[in-house]
């Protein structure tokens, strides 16, 4: 915070100075001489005009995620930070402990007075541009409890390992989201008969112009679902910068890849979106997973990841922990699915031989995770192998093994935690 930006080198084109300065601290002169030279020649920088404001220079030396606390760093830039499991013992994950996930390193800090949401596309009747105030006052405001869960959560648990951010179990968080229904906003623009998908773009972008912008689409059916929101509040506060200020998409029951942050652009389209983020990334094989949620993006072999799979997590025990066998041990956890709701969570204390029901806690709605509790009364000393197993209201139970898939998504295998009673 206290460091002053480096002085501009007179032999460098001004447009590149701020950006290269950012790397000066990391990479010293080699980076500047080589990359600035290369990139200046190729004009590959994403947005040279960005670099012309002093504000940018100041922002470059901001502390990382300064509004966040206690997160586990996976990568600095783009920032990917997960929540330690110990913060999952409350119904709603506090904003300052809520995980952070980005694909791009340019993440503008948005001034809400100037923010605008543009709605267009070839299948719209009347294009519209909304300010934050218009969005908040022109439409009915609603609130929903929903779990935001990264597609790759628990990727690091796959064996053999899979390439990608090596998430543990903390790329998720449960929150109360306040916003307006996407369908209400689109009712104001009108949707043509030809509409097939709606695409969403946020203000973040890659460092290079050649990097495909992170843009996602949803099928019309999900867009018109009353639970799909454009949210501007999270747990009663404006969205934190790192979770999408001033407005983001909330797609309850679907993985967070669709929950576009810093939303700036919506397009109603009569054709499937054809970009890397839809056609190549975030896809799962049809074999092993349920299809049919996003037909316009399906191929014969694979399809976009969409709905969450039934899953659970023990939140207050750590593998290898020791307890006294003299008193009962309360085991806490959470369980969730795609929005059918949780029917039951069972627990085994003998490595899966026998199972008992846990007590489900208050229901905050079918898209929220459900907390559960179990009171373990020790009968012997030694090792207890604790497992939790969730079943959804539709009768789907967590599997013993995850379904292998190339990108390491949907890890929902039963977890086993060993504790010692002494």
């Amino acid at each position, binding site marked *: 915070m206290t460091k002053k930006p480096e002085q501009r080198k007179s032999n460098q084109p001004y447009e590149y100075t701020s950006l290269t300065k950012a790397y000066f601290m990391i990479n010293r002169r*080699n980076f500047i001489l080589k990359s600035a030279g290369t990139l200046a020649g190729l004009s590959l920088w994403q947005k040279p005009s960005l670099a012309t404001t002093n*504000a940018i220079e100041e*922002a470059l030396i901001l502390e990382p995620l300064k509004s966040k606390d206690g997160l586990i760093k996976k990568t600095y830039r*783009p920032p990917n930070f997960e929540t330690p499991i110990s913060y999952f013992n409350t119904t709603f994950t506090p904003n300052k402990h809520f995980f952070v996930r980005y694909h791009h390193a340019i993440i503008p800090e948005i001034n809400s007075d100037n923010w*605008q949401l543009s709605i267009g596309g070839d299948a719209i009747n009347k294009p519209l541009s909304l300010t934050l105030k218009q969005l908040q006052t022109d439409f009915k405001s609603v609130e929903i409890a929903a779990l935001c869960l990264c597609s790759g959560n628990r990727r690091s648990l796959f064996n053999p390992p899979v390439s990608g951010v090596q998430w543990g179990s903390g790329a998720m968080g449960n929150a109360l989201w306040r916003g307006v229904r996407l369908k209400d906003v689109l009712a104001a623009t009108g949707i043509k008969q030809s509409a097939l998908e709606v695409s969403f773009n946020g*203000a973040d972008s890659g460092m*290079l112009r050649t990097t495909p912008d992170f843009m996602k689409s949803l099928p019309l059916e999900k867009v018109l679902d009353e639970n799909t929101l454009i949210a501007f509040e999270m747990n009663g506060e404006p969205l934190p910068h790192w979770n999408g200020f001033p407005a983001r998409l909330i797609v309850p029951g679907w993985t967070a890849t669709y929950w576009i942050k810093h939303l700036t652009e919506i397009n109603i389209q009569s054709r499937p979106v054809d970009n890397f983020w839809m056609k190549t990334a975030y896809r799962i094989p049809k074999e092993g997973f349920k299809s049919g949620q996003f037909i316009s993006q399906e191929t014969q072999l694979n399809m976009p990841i969409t709905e969450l799979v039934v899953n659970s997590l023990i939140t207050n025990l750590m593998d290898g922990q020791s307890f006294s066998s003299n008193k009962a041990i309360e085991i806490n956890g959470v369980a969730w699915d795609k929005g059918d709701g949780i029917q039951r969570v069972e627990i085994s204390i003998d490595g899966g031989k026998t199972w008992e029901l846990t007590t489900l806690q208050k229901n905050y709605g079918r898209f929220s995770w459900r907390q559960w509790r179990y009171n373990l009364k020790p009968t012997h000393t030694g090792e207890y192998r604790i497992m939790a197993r969730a079943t959804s209201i539709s009768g789907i139970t967590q599997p013993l093994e995850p379904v292998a898939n190339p990108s390491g998504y949907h890890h929902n295998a039963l977890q086993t935690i060993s504790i010692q009673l002494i």
Partner: protein
Amino acid sequence: MPIFFLLITLFTNAALSEESQIHLKEDLGKENIISQCSICHSADYITMHAKILDRSGWEKTVGKMINVMGAPINDCDKKIIIDYLVKNYGK
């Protein structure tokens, strides 16, 4: 995104000072990583994949960075980068 929007917004990034504490192994090719890969992402994307990717995995990853993400890396540098990654962070 409209240009005025860009001008009034700040450009933020993860902590560059903390990022600078990621140390890649000293070897031929490290300079290429720093000057080329680090344009878009911090070096922990590399260390995070240590022992996960074999030669074919690193080739695929570097290929994706060039062909999909648009990294301006020529064939000569590509080979140097892949050799460095396989030798120092390969499975």
